[in-house]
């Protein structure tokens, strides 16, 4: 290649674009931000199986039912609550979230008995509940100072509601991961006696259910909760003995979670009156009006549950990789990638025996991988399957460079520029159709929440796109410039 050829090439926007993207990718991986202690890995994100850690996939024990009724929805909900002994939440006009893993067959008689019928039945929880689960898990993980946690809600394709939550914790073994998820805090209610002194009333085990934030007629937000019989009795006794029923303002009720005060307020006058005559088992803790009140109510609700999730979950899948093994896998896949590239280089050399074709081919292939990694760094973590996709891209990439080369070098001679452009266009046409099919074939896998092969599909699709839009057109230009000398 002489100076003249290089000059023509550098002026071609296709070639310039490839160079820019390669440089940009390298900057993204190594310089923005600089990460020298990671060495050659730079800013690449690795999945659990290469980094080491544990994952748990849990299924919500809950269903969402669309119903129709001639009677009142409130009665239906009440019937469901008593029959199933579980929380029932109204999501909207005609959807209920039943926080128990009941089958449709078991639900039907209860609906029939309340003069209602089931329109649709789906496993899962409402967005609202799902977000709450995510927030609680996040809080737990953050409380332990863990940085590398990923919590994802998963909705199976074809369903409208999140049915699973997947949590990935880097650098944590399975036993610890299960402990974190299952762990509950110690919740206690105390009553103020004299000054700042408080006295124990009851523990969280006396709370049977916790509702969702609701607004009362004054516009104040609050969270309803109920006590067991013993709990209600203990609460009444403490309220009377401490003097809270007579002078609520001097005797706040204090809620404590893991030794931290999370709520403190006086008894409501009306409630104080009721407590004088009998134990009360259903209460509501109000948090104030407006958005601030709602936010506080949300937090309080989580605290009342003492870190327990609002719905029961069942572990349906789990796994762990020790960090040392992940490190070993990393080396192995890097080796596989290099070997694949080398092998491909040897095969094309064997076919063309012409360094001026083979070197640009391999170089373009390498550029494609660098650009792919540069984009991947921002959108996906590299796991084993993703790297398999990357290597598969090397395979298809070379495939299509061969199509271009053979198309333009028809009968072993370099054609005139006019004919060249025609053939080059035809080659790109073949590649475009092939690219479109790969894109479509991998799309379902890339869009599905449940597949752990998302990375594989995303990398394949990206590879195809970069190939057809950037690197292959550039290759056509390079090979033309080199051969037309």
């Amino acid at each position, binding site marked *: 290649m002489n100076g003249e050829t290089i000059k023509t090439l550098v002026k071609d926007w296709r070639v310039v674009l490839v160079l820019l993207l390669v440089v940009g990718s390298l900057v993204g991986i190594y310089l923005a931000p600089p990460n020298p202690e990671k060495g050659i890995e730079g800013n690449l994100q690795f999945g659990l199986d290469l980094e080491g850690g544990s994952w748990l996939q849990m299924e919500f024990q809950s269903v969402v039912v669309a119903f129709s009724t001639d009677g009142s929805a409130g009665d239906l909900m009440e019937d469901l609550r008593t029959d199933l002994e579980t929380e029932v939440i109204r999501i909207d006009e005609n959807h209920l979230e039943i926080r128990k893993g009941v089958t449709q067959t078991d639900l039907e008689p209860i609906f029939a008995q309340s003069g209602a019928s089931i329109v649709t039945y789906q496993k899962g929880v409402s967005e609202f509940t799902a977000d709450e689960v995510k927030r609680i898990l996040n809080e737990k993980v953050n409380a332990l100072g863990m940085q590398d946690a990923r919590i994802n809600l998963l909705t199976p*394709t074809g369903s409208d509601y999140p049915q699973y939550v997947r949590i990935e914790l880097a650098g944590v073994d399975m036993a610890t991961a299960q402990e974190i998820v299952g762990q509950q805090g110690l919740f206690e209610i105390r009553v103020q006696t004299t000054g700042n002194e408080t006295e124990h009333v009851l523990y969280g085990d006396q709370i049977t259910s916790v509702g969702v934030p609701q607004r009362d007629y004054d516009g104040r937000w609050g969270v309803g909760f109920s006590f067991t019989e013993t709990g209600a009795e203990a609460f009444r006794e403490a309220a009377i003995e401490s003097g809270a029923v007579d002078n609520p303002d001097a005797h706040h009720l204090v809620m404590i979670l893991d030794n931290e005060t999370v709520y403190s307020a006086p008894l409501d006058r009306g409630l104080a009156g009721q407590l004088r005559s009998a134990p009360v088992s259903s209460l509501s803790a109000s948090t104030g009006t407006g958005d601030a009140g709602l936010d506080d109510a949300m937090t309080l609700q989580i605290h009342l549950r003492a870190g327990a999730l609002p719905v029961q979950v069942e572990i349906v*899948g789990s796994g762990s990789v020790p960090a040392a093994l992940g490190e070993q896998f990393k080396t192995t896949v890097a080796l596989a990638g290099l070997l694949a590239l080398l092998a491909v280089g040897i095969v094309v050399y064997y076919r063309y025996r012409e360094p001026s074709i083979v070197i640009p081919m391999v170089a373009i292939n390498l550029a494609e991988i660098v650009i792919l990694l540069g984009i991947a760094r921002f959108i996906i973590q590299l796991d084993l399957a993703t790297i398999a996709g990357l290597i598969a891209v090397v395979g298809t990439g070379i495939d299509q460079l061969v199509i271009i080369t053979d198309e333009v070098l028809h009968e072993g001679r370099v054609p005139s520029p006019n004919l060249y452009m025609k053939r080059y266009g035809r080659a790109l046409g073949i590649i475009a159709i092939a690219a479109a099919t790969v894109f479509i074939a991998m799309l379902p896998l890339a869009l599905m929440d449940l597949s752990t092969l998302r990375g594989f599909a995303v990398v394949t699709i990206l590879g195809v796109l970069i190939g057809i839009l950037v690197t292959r057109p550039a290759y056509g230009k390079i090979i033309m410039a080199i051969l037309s000398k």
Partner: protein
Amino acid sequence: MEFVRYDVNKYSPRQMVALPLVLLLLAGVLLGYTALATGLPITPGIDFAGGTAVTVFTSDSRETIEAAFAEYPVLSVGEGIGDGRYIQFGPMDDAQYQSLVGIINERYPDAKIDQIGETFGKTLQSQASLALVFSFIGMAVVVMIAFRNLVPAGTIVLAAFADIVITAGVMQIIGIPLSLGTTAALLMLIGYSVDSNILLTTRLLKRKGKLEEKLAGAFRTGIIMTTTTLTAIAAMWVVATAGQIQIIAEIASVLLIGLFVDLMNTWMLNAGILKNHILRGNKR
């Protein structure tokens, strides 16, 4: 390379399509029979049937491992090159699973463990079949739009279908289970197989010149294309198998089988039908 000696112009269309069609039929019968007997066309792996998979590096032999886990439902112990072992267990209840994890952690602290529940496996299964169906339909639509001619487009779709069915048949015979990884590989195959078929179809239908020459030229390019892909995948397979990376080894082996099957389907089935189509068109 053995297949390079194959002369695409030597045989009549009828001879060319015979072998792929017979194999397609046989594979179809095998998968159909398995589906009737077990409910699934291919024996499912851990991902779809539920169970536990353990990857461990140890000098313990298969017998030692089987003896150590005699109380648990061991399905198979795979031995890689070197010290890698891949142990699969069938579904078990939570208590048994916890005790198994305890034993593994004690015996092989550096093991990779993955567990999938039985019902969750079923969900994954239905999601995977959904993906397969959507992919195939999507591919067919793209090909139809691209060629707007029933015979060539239909032939490409048939070749892709034959690729998947025959590859699945071979998987079932040599015992590669259906898992998330192998499903992805089958999807990938849809993309791969279309590559060389499109090249063939475009060259034969859109270029001018003698049929024999066009066919021979397309074949030369097609072979080198598939060989390079095969080489890349083979390299991946060798390293992943040696390094006991099960998911990559599975993906790679399905792609390897699929690419060989695709060579046959492209240069015998697809080429045969197209040749027949063009010859008949010329007579009219």
